[in-house]
């Protein structure tokens, strides 16, 4: 029974990682850049929902939508101001800019909301589910996280594979210049990708804070890095890969903690990543890209 309960905790944590990892993977797949500020957009999403519920007294669901709108706008603004001028710059410059944006967001949050941690009240209204005479307890947040994650993955898959904008995304990810020649607006496609990624970050932020109800300017930093690991683990650029990577990472983290050592849980996670990358350098579901020189 313990194992089952750890497994469920792992899947719950993993589904949050997966939602964050989607943001990384989509942006990487389409714009070929690592948006390290993604973790901090999560934090902003958390704060927005927190402000909406505690300061304005809004309904939790409304606060999630509010957070999504603000984060979408924020994502587009960041992309326009910080990344767009660097479209032709070497990828290292973009990477450093992303780290800069990450610091900017963290410190702006520090100024706006102070360093004092806030306690986030869960937006999930359900009580815990008790199974097997109360031996197995599954919290409402866990159930919602898993469901939301599955819904998001299915929706995204549909968008990317079935819609026109999805086609544009796939085209840009395959060859930016050729897509441009074919009349696909590369800038618009990248902006939309950022918008979707940031909206997902807001959802992830709210779920993260509902599961672990503490909100600080650095809240998004570590989950951001873990989710990035998950994206690489599953094969960066691949949407099902991000899902698989996220879930596996969450499960490994919790089971490692439970059965091996609470001290080494992070070491185990990253050791697994290293092994996977040695055996399969593109990640679990990553595509092999041939680069002609």
């Amino acid at each position, binding site marked *: 029974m*313990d194992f089952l*309960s*750890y497994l469920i*905790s792992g899947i719950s*944590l993993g589904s949050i990682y997966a939602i964050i990892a989607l943001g990384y993977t989509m942006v990487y797949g389409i714009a070929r850049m690592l948006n390290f500020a993604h973790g901090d957009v999560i934090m902003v999403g958390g704060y927005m929902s*927190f402000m909406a519920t*505690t300061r304005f007294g809004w309904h939790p669901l409304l606060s999630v939508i509010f957070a999504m709108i603000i984060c979408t706008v924020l994502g587009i603004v960041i992309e326009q101001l910080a990344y767009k001028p660097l479209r032709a710059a070497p990828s290292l410059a973009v990477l450093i800019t992303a780290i800069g944006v990450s610091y900017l967001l963290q*410190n702006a949050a*520090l100024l706006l909301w*102070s*360093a*004092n*941690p*806030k*306690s*986030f*009240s869960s937006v999930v209204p359900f009580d*815990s589910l008790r199974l097997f005479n*109360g031996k197995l*307890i599954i*919290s409402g947040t866990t159930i919602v996280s898993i469901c939301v994650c599955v819904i998001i993955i299915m929706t995204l898959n549909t968008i990317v594979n079935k819609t026109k904008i999805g086609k544009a995304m796939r085209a840009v990810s395959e060859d930016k210049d050729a897509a441009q020649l074919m009349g696909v607006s590369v800038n618009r496609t990248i902006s939309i990708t950022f918008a979707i990624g940031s909206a997902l970050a807001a959802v992830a932020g709210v779920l993260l804070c509902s*599961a*672990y*109800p*503490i909100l*600080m300017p*650095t809240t998004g930093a*570590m*989950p951001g890095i873990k989710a990035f690991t998950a994206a690489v683990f599953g094969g960066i650029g691949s949407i099902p890969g991000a899902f698989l990577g996220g879930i596996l990472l969450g499960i490994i*983290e*919790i089971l490692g*903690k*439970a059965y091996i050592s*609470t*001290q080494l*849980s*992070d070491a185990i996670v990253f050791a697994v990543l290293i092994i996977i990358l040695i055996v399969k350098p593109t990640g679990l579901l990553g595509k092999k890209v041939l680069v002609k020189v």
Partner: protein
Amino acid sequence: MKRKNYFTFVVTLVLCLALLAGCADKPSKPTDTAPIKLGGIGPLTGGAAVYGIAVANGAKIAVDEINALGGIQFELNFQDDEHDAEKSVNAYNVLKDWGMQILVGTVTTDPCIAVAAESYKDRIFTLTPSASSPEVVKGKDNTFQMCFSDPYQGIVSAQYIQEKNLGSKIAIIYNNADAYSTGIYEKFVSEAEARNLEVVSTTTFTNDTASDFSVQLSEAQNAGADLVFLPIYYEPSSLILAQAKAMNYAPKFFGVDGMDGILEMENFDTTLAEGVMLLTPFAADAQDERTASFVKKYKELHNDVPNQFAADGYDVVYAIYEALKDKDVTAETPASELCTQLIEIFTNDKFVFSGLTGDNMVWSKNGEVAKPPKGMFIENGVYVGMD
């Protein structure tokens, strides 16, 4: 062209006015003595900013109060170190160039160890509000602590639990990446053993894994622990309390001074902390006049409830003031001379200081403070004395 001149004139006028406004803001000094220069160092930005900001604010309030009294005047220059030892030493050098005579700081342990080594060499008296590791004062006659040392808290916690018979099977969850938490944990375990307290489960986390505690709590629950000792700060503690409730586990929780602040967390569901016990030197809702006036001032100025770090910062400045107020010291007194004088005063048995964080504090030769800890428990969202 004329228009441009007019514009320049207006801008100049506004700037002049701004300059005048700056003058008006300055408090008129009751005496014309130059102030003694206090340097402060602590994290004002970054993850540990909550502590540094609190100390800086608390110290500032004390300085303003003392300056308003007349007599000795203080000037406080507080520098940011982002809780980083290297930046802390840089901040220390900046303050030395500024002419610092006494150091209030540093706030966090690791930077303090680095800075105290420098201030020992330079003979600058150092009184840290909150760096609680014994390493901070070890072998340095010029460094003193305002807060409990970590081992002391571990010992006193075990004493409290055994003497009051609070629990028979104890689980410990501590942060093994943190000197503060580990320091308390180690002493607690050895003292618990000496007192025949049974520790049934010991689990850890690090700053990077401080979000999911379901595993640690399940282990404590399976081991049948009826008391969980939490020698950690209040942020992870708040998560532990919430997750324990979600899994229907209700042991007694016992924290140390790092637990203080949990009730002031914005939007925190205080029913989660019902019955939590903690040892803390300072409670913001204590009824004595000094605390009440400090809390009121702090709330007015910073729109926030002060935590124990703010009180520590306040006490440090007042302790220095108490030590120096009858002495013949000025802004001209060299730092090394002040250092010798202050060491003499602080290690003198007759020097007893009562502040917000404890009554009748005395300091030992090695720089550790002795003050009685206050055992508290939380009832209906407020601290109640345990004794």
